């Protein structure tokens, strides 16, 4: 890292909010990276991490709303955020297009998150200087 002190990160979050600390730790990392002058190429939600993109999460009012916190951070810093389509569909996270395709009663993707294929992650690994993974652990 010493050769190129400013990094362009891709973050991959695989742990869900409220069952793991992964989204919270990733957001702390992202804020610290931006304030230190680094850039974020994109954020990719994979596996249980896709729950972070749910517009229906409703935590008690005295708890941090991690999906909203993340959505605001992405919008303010103009960072693309994508949820893996295969992970998302398995877990009941759908956009309006998939709602129509599978004739589902609702859609629930929180903007600015979009649904995309794993190619979005592959592109991130090629475009960024570091890829950092945030797993559920345990």
């Amino acid at each position, binding site marked *: 890292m010493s050769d190129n002190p400013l990094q362009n990160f891709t973050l991959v979050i695989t742990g869900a909010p409220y069952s793991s600390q992964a989204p919270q730790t990733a957001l702390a990392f992202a804020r610290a990276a931006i304030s230190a002058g680094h850039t974020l190429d994109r954020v990719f939600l994979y596996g249980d991490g896709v729950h972070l993109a749910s517009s229906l999460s409703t935590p008690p009012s005295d708890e941090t709303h991690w999906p909203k916190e993340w959505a605001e951070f992405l919008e303010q810093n103009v960072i693309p955020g994508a949820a893996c389509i295969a992970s998302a569909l398995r877990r009941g996270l759908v956009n309006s297009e998939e709602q129509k395709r599978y004739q589902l009663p609702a859609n629930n993707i929180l903007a600015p998150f979009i649904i995309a294929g794993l190619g979005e992650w592959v592109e991130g*690994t090629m475009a960024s200087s570091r890829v950092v993974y945030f797993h559920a652990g345990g």
Partner: protein
Amino acid sequence: MSTLIVIDQPPYGTWAGREALDMAFSLAAFDQSVSLLFMGAGVNWLRAAQQTNGIEQKSVEKNLSAAPIFGVEAMYADTLACAQYGLTPEGMVAGVTMSPNSAELMHQHTHTAFAG
């Protein structure tokens, strides 16, 4: 750029390993160099003749056998983990290379990603 996807989760009881395998296939589909390393409980992926009817899940063996077809360059099994789980080369699926020094193997790749 070369990526080593490390599957350290058991084949059943969690979806993390399956999703890590999809990551490997996706890299290969985009013509990126990718190999798999099975370590810890992940070496159980490599057992031959897995019977999964009782848990209503597809055997991971079929997915694994597709790895060379998709363009995954190599499948490594951590030697120590195989010993811990009583896994011998005879009891393993075909095409697996033993990895006596997995730390060194990770250093040989520019990217390393763990299953979860």
